[in-house]
């Protein structure tokens, strides 16, 4: 069994906790209870032909990282940047966060989730922008924690990437 620590990163209220809940226990709740500190959950799944445990660290929402939250990222294999499609500021914050996190964790793999796809009429980011990121090599998924759309696929893809990275690291070692 392969274990990976994966952090959820993004502005507050973008749906990090809801996505974890959806992925781990298939529940969705409309109420918003902001996360204080860190909440850790896990789920086992099969990815790239291997049994994998994702240990999911759901962090309090941040537009940029103070030293303290950086500490929570220590030892992570990957992270999930979450954006609320209906809030452009959360998208711009994610671009900023990606720079900060990648500087400290250059080997960590990540996916970007454009969440709240059930509200697509209200989105403030354009498909062109997301496609552009894909073109730059980012893994981008539209998700809805509410309906479950795209959630499973997104987590699975990250898990697959993590497995591949771990295996190739083992080979070169």
């Amino acid at each position, binding site marked *: 069994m392969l274990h990976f620590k994966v952090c959820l990163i993004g502005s507050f209220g973008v749906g990090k906790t809801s996505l974890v809940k959806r992925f781990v226990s298939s529940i969705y709740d409309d109420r918003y209870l902001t996360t*204080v500190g860190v909440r850790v959950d896990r789920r086992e799944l099969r990815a790239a032909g291997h049994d994998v445990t994702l240990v999911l660290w759901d962090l309090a929402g941040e537009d940029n990282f103070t030293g*303290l939250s950086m500490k929570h990222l220590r030892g992570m294999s990957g992270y999930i940047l979450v954006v609320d499609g209906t809030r452009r500021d959360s998208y711009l914050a994610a671009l900023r966060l990606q720079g900060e996190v990648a500087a400290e964790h250059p080997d960590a793999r990540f996916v970007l989730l454009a969440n709240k796809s059930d509200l697509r009429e209200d989105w403030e980011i354009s498909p062109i922008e997301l496609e552009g990121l894909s*073109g730059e090599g980012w893994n981008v998924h539209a998700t809805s924690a509410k309906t479950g759309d795209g959630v499973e696929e997104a987590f699975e893809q990250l898990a697959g990437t993590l497995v591949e990275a771990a295996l190739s690291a083992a080979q070169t070692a």
Partner: protein
Amino acid sequence: MESHRPVTLLSVDDDPLSLELISHALEQPGLRILTCNSPLRALDIARDEHPQIVLLDLMMPGMSGLELLKQLVAMDPTVDVILLTAHYSTEAAVEAIQYGACDYLNKPLQVERLQERVGGLIAEWRRRNKVQRLDAESLEANQFQGIIGHSALMLEVFARLRRIGPHFQTALITGPTGTGKELVAQALHRLSPVASGPFVICNCAAIPENLVESELFGHLKGSFTGAISDKTGLFEAAHNGVLFLDELGELPLAAQAKLLRAIQQQEIQRIGATHVRKVNVRIVAATNRDLLADVERKAFREDLFFRLSMVEVKLPPLASRPDDIPLLIRHFIRQFSTRYGKEFEGLRRRAEALLVRYHWPGNVRDLENAIGYACMMAEPPWVDVNDLPSRIRTAEVQAPGSDTLLVTLDEIQRLHAQKVLAAVGGNKVKAAGVLGVSRATLYRLLSSGGTAASGEDGDHEQHDANG
């Protein structure tokens, strides 16, 4: 007037047509627009004019827009820079954001989008300005003699102080520790006819028992071992003023008898003296103890208690007046900003929400310490959840033996539900109302995590079995 202070926007582009288009599109009252077609000159202008918003063309001769962006942000981290790019490049957009741009727009400019983005920023700047002003006003308007508050409970206290101030001979201030008893004592002094007279503080808990009487009433040289010279007592020092007896409940019984006599007769006798001296002293006493209970178990003199409690001011615990917390936060943020030379705007909303929910066992003093700590830890301009002392951050997840960070949201919900239930005296209908959930949900919350709600009160609603 402050509200009309214009917002300044600087537009930098080597193409004069583009500058003209932007000026034209954005022209509006309250917005000062500066234009500049050279990146090097743009830095000078920014330094002199402090624009809040900068529109920056990415491609210019001399210096790249990104380079200029970096320098602008280094010079003034609060500036909002929107980058204009000739054709959309994701890489450039991402880079711009990571260097501190607040957004980017593509050329050819869509006037509507430009107006919308800039309009949003202007509104934001105006809002910040206004909030600051309102803050100032509301702090002035919501305090009485330096005591901050606008909750119904505190307004009642203020009204009482206003009435008592000019007339009291003795007053008793009661309330848990850290609720502002000393502030109230000072206020009573200022409101009294002897405001220009002395305000003398005696902390009854801090004086060794055998020295209490000598402190209060003074002594003559040689009247007891260690009395090497004559000493004036605090009563005499407070002549024609106010004597504040803090922690009165700690006063030994023997001293209580003499205190009562001094209050009633308005005269004191130094230890070792044969004659009495007349004094004119108003007494404000404070205690966080339940004096009546002390009277019942004979630890406090009944006659002194009744004499003092004729005029009583009760200070409510902070947790019973959460509306005061945001005001107090602002007050302390301001105080510590000055003290530490850091310019804070305030608390992030979720940090404030956390403080409003906290149960504040040490009341306002506790809040003051928490803000002081946070202001020391935080980078201006904002204090966030992570800057708060950990005992407050994790207050809701304090399950014995559990690692407070690694607790599920369900666990936090359960503990919070329990706390609310306890706070409303076990009334589940009320607790559900406070929590904003149905009773069924409340039961589910309480029973999750293994500790089933016990002692059912005959409700018909079902609650989930554990497991």
